[in-house]
């Protein structure tokens, strides 16, 4: 009975306690413990346009995230993350939901986790092709780090020494959250060619299709051979990003109504990655075979197979100035398609074909850091630069001012969406 009360107390605390909630309660029998903490975020994005009046276009929202943990004894732990999102200009972003809610059991070499959990499928210091299956809220296509969505499923691990075997099975509904209407990243068709000229078109919603009996399955085996870390991974399930097709409802009415058919097609990824070091450099590489689908040149869904290779290095420098340090991650990516044809700039799974990614951060002193994320896509000729200035002078408040500059050829993702270049201010503060 007392345990039931503890569970109820924790759940009530998680969902309703808000900013004024207490942080830690330790029960008398020492078997149960609960912790609760959270943070508030405010994000404002400004999109400078060619028209000076566009400078004042902004997109802002606030988020509160509460995270609670319940432990029972040595082996059991439960965790829940509840997120409240408020966006004055975008009703679709006004949400309160439990993004994670799971329990896990750990004893000796065994680990089992069940419930709703966010998953990052890739295991690489840089971008891994296994990450193509990660499920996000794509309100913004570039800022996805805080937008990972939970998925119901199971994770089991067995580890012994330096070898680990992992199996995951998740619910088939791996669909990312998409915003097709009034979205800077989506251009819904407005007009179509008809005999004798053009006709206007009217969007009438979407229909989603995915294989409802196909769980998202994954397995990996990792070990160390000498000073080389080796990991083989495999994943099969529905893609989180759909292929879209326009389906006209009728052709006689004007404007012509249409529905967007979203096909979340099955995909399989097999990857092998290696990691080691030389001197003070950490080195890593991954080769992945991807068996997926895409929209062919004639509009039909066709196989899309390619090999994705990447080489990367990272290093951390400290300096004589005791507050200063520099972190650098560099990655080169090369995709080898198994069939001819070029990828459209709007195919998000194909942003990178021959690309160089740089991620670096210089801590100038304890209060200030400067960072740069840079991506250059050489085959489609596009680039993205994201300089950031991070201030912790008013800790625990963290303020981050960043720019996001997309550019290059219209055949590349970055050039195609160059009007989405932005300036952003991000404020984060712990609230518990």
């Amino acid at each position, binding site marked *: 009975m007392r345990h039931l009360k503890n569970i109820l107390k924790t759940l009530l605390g998680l969902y309703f306690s808000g900013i004024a909630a207490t942080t830690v309660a330790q029960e008398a029998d020492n078997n149960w413990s609960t912790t609760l*903490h959270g*943070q508030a975020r405010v994000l404002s994005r400004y999109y400078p346009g060619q028209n000076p009046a566009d400078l004042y276009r902004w997109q802002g929202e606030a988020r509160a995230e509460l995270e609670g943990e319940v432990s029972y004894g*040595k082996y059991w732990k439960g965790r829940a993350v509840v997120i409240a999102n408020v966006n004055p200009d975008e009703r679709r972003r006004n949400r309160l939901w439990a993004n994670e809610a799971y329990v*896990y059991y*750990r004893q*000796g*070499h065994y*680990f089992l*986790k069940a419930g709703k959990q966010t998953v*990052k499928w890739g*295991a*690489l*210091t840089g971008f891994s092709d296994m990450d193509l299956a990660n499920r996000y809220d794509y309100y913004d296509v570039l800022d996805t*780090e805080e937008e990972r969505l939970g998925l119901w499923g199971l994770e089991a*691990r067995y*580890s012994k020494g*330096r070898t*680990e075997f992992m199996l995951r099975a998740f619910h088939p509904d791996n669909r990312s959250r998409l915003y097709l209407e009034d979205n800077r990243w989506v251009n819904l068709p407005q007009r179509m060619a008809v005999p004798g000229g053009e006709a206007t078109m009217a969007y009438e919603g979407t229909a989603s299709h995915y294989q409802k009996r196909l769980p998202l399955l994954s397995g990996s085996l990792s070990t*160390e051979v000498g*000073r080389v*870390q080796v990991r083989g991974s495999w994943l099969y399930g529905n893609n989180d990003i759909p292929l879209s097709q326009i389906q006209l409802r009728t052709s006689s009415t004007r404007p012509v109504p249409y529905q967007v058919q979203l096909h979340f097609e099955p995909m399989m990824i097999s990857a092998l990655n290696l*990691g*080691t*070091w*030389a*001197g*003070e*450099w*950490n080195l*890593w590489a991954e080769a992945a075979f991807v068996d997926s689908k895409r929209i062919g040149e004639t509009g039909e869904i066709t196989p899309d197979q390619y090999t994705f290779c990447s080489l990367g290095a990272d290093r951390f420098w*400290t300096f*004589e*100035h*005791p*507050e200063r*340090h520099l972190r650098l991650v560099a990655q080169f990516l090369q995709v080898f398609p198994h069939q001819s044809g070029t990828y459209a700039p709007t195919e998000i799974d194909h942003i990178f074909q021959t690309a160089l990614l740089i991620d670096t951060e210089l801590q100038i*002193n*304890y*209060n200030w850091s400067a960072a740069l994320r840079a991506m250059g896509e050489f085959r489609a000729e596009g680039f993205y630069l994201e300089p950031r200035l991070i201030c912790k002078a008013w*800790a*625990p408040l*963290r303020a981050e001012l960043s720019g996001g500059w997309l550019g290059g050829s219209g055949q590349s993702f970055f050039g195609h969406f160059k009007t989405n270049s932005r300036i952003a201010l991000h404020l*984060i503060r*712990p609230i518990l």
Partner: protein
Amino acid sequence: MILAFTLIVTLFSTPVLPDAAAIMEAHRQATAVQDLTGQLTYTNISKSGRKQTRTLQQYILRTDKGDYTYNLLLEFTDPQDVAGTATLTIQQERKDDEQWLYLPALRMSKRISPSKKSDRFMGTEITYEDLSGHLSEPIDDYQYTLLGEETINGRSAYKLEALPREGLRTQYGKRLLWIDQATHLMVQTRFYGHKGEHLKTYTATDIRPVGSGGHHRAHQIKMENVQTGNTTKVQYSGFAINAGVDAAIFSTTWMETR
């Protein structure tokens, strides 16, 4: 006659100081543990007064190799932008330590290039060599000379000089050590470079018993870098010594599934 009596009384009442080797062995025994857990909060303070504070949970387990090497797991718990980051170090006698890093943003742990002994530990003024010596003084690597007794922060201490034995690769040319006479813990250390320059001063205070096994620990330490003016202050809490730590937690799986 009176002079002779005084001399005899003085001779017999002068305490005989233990030799340096015995003091250092007592120190090693006082610091040696089978396992240790606890929380620590460190604050780096720059010469100009800027501060950086981090809180960690530490797990330490002596390896079963029969020497004084340890497995060390540190997990950041605060502030939130680094919470969840963890490092695992497997110390190796006479070899580079093995190290892994877990970054929550990547959700993966990776083997990283071993830190040099002179690298600063987590941006503090404490180097990996200092940390290793803090866990277990490398007695065989140094030649110790007892210089006398002094009082440090109200505690009677033996003052010793530690000179590295020939061939030892160390960032220090000399250390002056003050060992507490009551607990045999280090209460102060002065570190000198190979040219004799004073580099840093370590001070340990708030020494209290921990648990019922007769162990004592300093609950506050400070490392002042005399060259740069930077200081690191560490506050310990929740010590548990030899209470049993599951060996399975010193693994990448454990770091990834926290």
